[in-house]
């Protein structure tokens, strides 16, 4: 009961703090929207050129995991990174370390807030992708656990970034430096065939790859995703992503400073 009340208190404070930063709210939703408008509506996909290579040569539905990945990846990385740095700079962790709230509870509360924000952004993205690009996708219930588990995973990584960088600026720069390559090299917008063969094993190291493959398997079956660990691709990739999420969450919570 007391753990729940601690979580509720932390979530409530974090949520209020977020929604009262209007520019942060605006750009959290604007960023994925502008990407969809640029790439989905202006550049557009061109399935006819798939034989000749080039970006956006797949049907619109193929890129849904990529658009979702923009918020599932970038929002936790940048928000958690800067939030941890902000807490450290304001001696908030020093204060929290003397309260009953644990580091894991703090990170869990932050994750809940991120999940709510990203859940709303994901709904917006799905709606816009369908409306603007005409993507034909299946609205699988598995989308919910994928988004949640993805948020848990990248909140853990974001907490580590914030813990190991020495300022908010550093945390944001690090999240961009890590997030951008991950976004484009995890089977989101760029297909495996468009990359050198030797690079494929590296793609398997990215948690976002399992998110992209799984979401694609769930929403765009035509993509023909392979089975994983003897399971259907949508479930197999979710399993791997969950294992990674648990690991990164634990590492993230452990990395949050408790002493100087």
């Amino acid at each position, binding site marked *: 009961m007391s753990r729940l009340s601690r979580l509720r208190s932390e979530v409530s404070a974090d949520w*209020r703090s977020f929604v009262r930063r209007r520019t942060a709210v605006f750009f959290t939703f604007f960023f994925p929207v502008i990407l969809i408008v640029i790439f989905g509506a202006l550049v557009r996909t061109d399935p006819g050129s798939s034989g000749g290579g080039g970006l956006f040569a797949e049907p619109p539905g193929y890129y849904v995991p990529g658009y979702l990945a923009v918020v599932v990846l970038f929002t936790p990385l940048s928000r958690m990174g800067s939030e941890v740095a902000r807490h450290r700079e*304001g*001696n908030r962790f020093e*204060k929290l370390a*003397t*309260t009953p709230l644990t580091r894991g509870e703090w990170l869990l509360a932050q994750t809940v807030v991120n999940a709510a924000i990203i859940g709303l952004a994901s709904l917006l993205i799905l709606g816009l992708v369908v409306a603007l690009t005409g993507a034909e996708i299946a609205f699988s219930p598995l989308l919910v656990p994928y988004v949640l588990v993805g948020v848990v995973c990248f909140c853990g990584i974001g907490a580590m970034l914030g813990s190991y960088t020495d300022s908010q600026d550093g945390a944001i720069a690090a999240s961009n430096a890590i997030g951008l390559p991950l976004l484009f090299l995890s089977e989101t917008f760029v297909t495996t065939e468009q990359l050198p063969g030797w690079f494929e094993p590296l793609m398997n190291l990215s948690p976002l790859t399992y998110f992209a493959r799984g979401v694609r398997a769930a929403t765009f079956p035509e993509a023909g995703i392979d089975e994983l660990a003897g399971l259907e691709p949508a479930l197999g990739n979710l399993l791997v992503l969950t294992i990674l999420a648990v690991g990164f969450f634990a590492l993230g919570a452990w990395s949050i400073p408790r*002493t*100087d």
Partner: protein
Amino acid sequence: MEAVVVADELQRSYGDAVALAGVSLSIGRGEVFALIGPNGAGKTTLVRALTGTTVPDGGSASVLGNSPERVDRDRLGVLPQDFSPPDRLTARELLAYYAGLYEDPRDPDAVLADVGLADAGDTWYENLSGGQQRRVCVGTTLVNDPDVLVLDEPTTGIDPAGRRTVWRLVESLADAGTTVLLTTHDMAEAQRLGDRVGLLADGELIAVGTPAELVATHAGSSRLTVELATPDADTGAGAEPATATPVDPATFADLEHPVDVRTRAGASTVVVREISPSEIGTVVAFLDERGIEYTGLTWAEPDLEDVYLALADDAEAARTTRAGADVGATAVEREAAGDGEGKKRGRGSQ
């Protein structure tokens, strides 16, 4: 008195810098222990070592019978130095947030009233004045009604009236049995609140005692400072700038009190020691009889600031790059503060 907070030979270094060089102290239940000392003396490190937010290199500490890492957090209230809570929450929301982290919290509105901010509960933290912000921060340490309260410079930036509100609050908590450790640069605060005061310098606790004990031991006696009139500056074209002729200490030999005379930067000051307010008239009469003009008379009882200047200035002087000059100045100031050290070292009088 039952020891609630104990430090035993605590040591902590950051690279080559020694923050704590074997600090030991014991604070009893309901006692207010005020920690004073120069910047960088190790006060915040000691606070952190006692609250489990830094790991000492050596020695041990206990709070409420447990190591600081294992102490029951519901019984501890801590205000870190330079603490900056989430700034887009109202004062009431902030207190409710921290209250929600504890098992049996107090009503945030009651805490707001305690810190004198009952009317500012709906104002965002970022829109409060600096002093109000600090009072909210103090409030965050009270939401769990702690048995041990650790306040690192609690009244920094708070106006005098607000400071007294916090002082009264700390006094009432201590009266109710709360053990308080506070650090401060405000000697009046330490003197008023501290049942005992510890002076930390260069990582060492160099003096501990009640304010009265420290003053009696280290601050010297009461003193009357007489500022002598300066000769007219303009003595004609080409004349030397006004420089006070050194006053002969023998001039005051007939006074029945120890006297130090100092001439500096064109002004002479006579410090008459061990003098009560009722004896000031005898000094005035003495000056009038001899036609010695003066521009000011200041009588002062020695206080904790004199203790601080007497003990901590040595460390400060040792750190400064202008050590030679500053040691001289320090000795003069110490002399003016009524301490015999400057005179003993032969730097005080001219």
